């Protein structure tokens, strides 16, 4: 692991590598200069933030609505199905549902709203990354939901809510003003982790994204493909930026956890 990080830093500065000509900044300058690093960072962080926000809100909402929902056998089966669904399948399914020739378009066709696949507004491989966001949200939701359900039980929020009700709060006041802040505070590390895993997602943006801009993993993969050795260091410059962000989030995560313990 450490080797990967060090190697990517060295490679990006031209210290190592097949065609290395000694330490240089030119790969960084070219990667920053053509705007690739900036656009990739903005895209990845934007998508990841949005997905983390939506899946956390949905998970917490569901937990607040039905705190013990997870204990029913049907619910557990359903969550395991979603959890067990590989990300590639999420991407595939979203593609088959939302693409021009997908299920939604077919359903709209049958009620006469869409005439042909071209008339369907682009939702995959699109400029707003709608498809990526849907697929990523679906794939990160179950684990976040599971975590917050566990947290509800571990923190014994049932008892806290009942206590709040005893001293005069309504049912929802208890949930929103006692349970919600506790869930958010104790769940911070999980939210950071979820952000991080969305940031590095690969399969979903690979299948549902556009040629440019691309997310970190996809861009690193494409740049490091051995077609153009001269541009390979740029892949490692991007990887270094990515590692830097991961490092910051990981440190925040661990600090939060230590703080909570």
């Amino acid at each position, binding site marked *: 692991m450490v080797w990967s990080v060090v190697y990517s830093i060295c490679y990006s500065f031209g210290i190592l590598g097949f065609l290395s000509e000694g330490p240089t900044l030119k790969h960084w300058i070219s990667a920053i200069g053509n705007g690739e690093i900036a656009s990739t960072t903005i895209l990845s962080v934007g998508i990841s933030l949005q997905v983390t926000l939506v899946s956390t809100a949905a998970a917490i909402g569901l937990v607040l*609505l039905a705190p013990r*929902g997870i204990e029913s056998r049907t619910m557990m089966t359903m969550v395991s199905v979603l959890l067990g669904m590989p990300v590639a399948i999420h991407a595939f399914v979203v593609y088959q549902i939302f693409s021009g020739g997908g299920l939604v378009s077919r359903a709209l066709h049958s009620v006469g709203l869409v005439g042909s696949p071209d008339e369907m507004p682009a939702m995959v491989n699109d400029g707003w990354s709608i498809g990526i966001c849907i697929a990523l949200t679906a794939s990160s939701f179950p684990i976040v939901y*599971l975590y917050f359900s*566990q947290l509800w039980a571990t923190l014994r929020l049932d008892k806290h809510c009942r206590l709040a009700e005893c001293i005069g709060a309504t049912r929802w006041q208890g949930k929103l003003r006692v349970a919600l802040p506790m869930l958010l505070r104790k769940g911070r590390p999980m939210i950071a982790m979820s952000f*991080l895993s969305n940031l590095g997602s690969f399969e979903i943006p690979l299948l549902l994204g556009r040629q440019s801009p691309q997310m970190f993993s996809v861009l690193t993969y494409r740049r490091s493909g051995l077609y153009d050795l001269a541009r390979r260091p740029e892949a490692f410059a991007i990887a270094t930026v990515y590692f830097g962000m991961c490092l910051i989030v*990981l440190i925040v995560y661990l600090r939060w956890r230590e703080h909570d313990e």
Partner: protein
Amino acid sequence: MNRLHRFFALLALWTLLAPVGMLVSLSIGSGWSYPRLLPDRIDLLPWRVFFASRDGIVTALLHSTMMSLLVSASSTLLGLVAGRSLRKHASLWLRVIAYIPFGVSPMVIGTCLYDLEVHLGVAGRMMGVLMAQFIFAFGFSTVLFCELWNTRTDRLESLVIELGGSRWSIWRHAIWPYAHRLILVSLLQTALYSWLDYGLISVLGGGNVPSITLTLYSYIREGSVNQAAQSGLVLMLPPVVGFAVSMSLLRPRHDGEKTN
């Protein structure tokens, strides 16, 4: 009121499960021309092809299974020991390194590891893929077991020592009863990690190491919708069962000792 809540919760999950229904319906037919909602013909063709052909998919399945077993056994064993020492040396940097596999994209790491494996002569071979998968799975299990060791296990251990127990009996009587569920979870999760891995195997395997994920991707690229749906279901089955098992093992127990 409570019934209404339950209804909405179930409704939300059913909507999320609809895709599975679509996968199943696609996998039992052939063709899917535009305005039709169901496949053109319901003839079970993808499944018949799957059970008839003995070469491609079966090899991929065997490879995936073997790699999962190897990765999960080795990483769980070593993670158990490493998690113990990680708790004793609780420096921040060591922890950051241990947590890397949780957050950092295997794709990016795999790209960086590729050159190392070229030098070691294992790139494009099964050994190389196994090494990389092991690094990640080892990280998972180390962190998982790191949570296991706490003051309670320490006290149990010292109790066994005070009662005159040997090193072996510490593991047998103090740690095993406490850890066996977690060991099972770790075995399952690391096996699933290897089973579902696409990033590492496609970068480091270089196309020479067959796996069920690679088969799925080639179907998706070719645009064979029905075959892709069918191999997707095959790929999904073990994880779904695995997660169901590990979820019931890690079910919230109301004794307040599960810290997460």
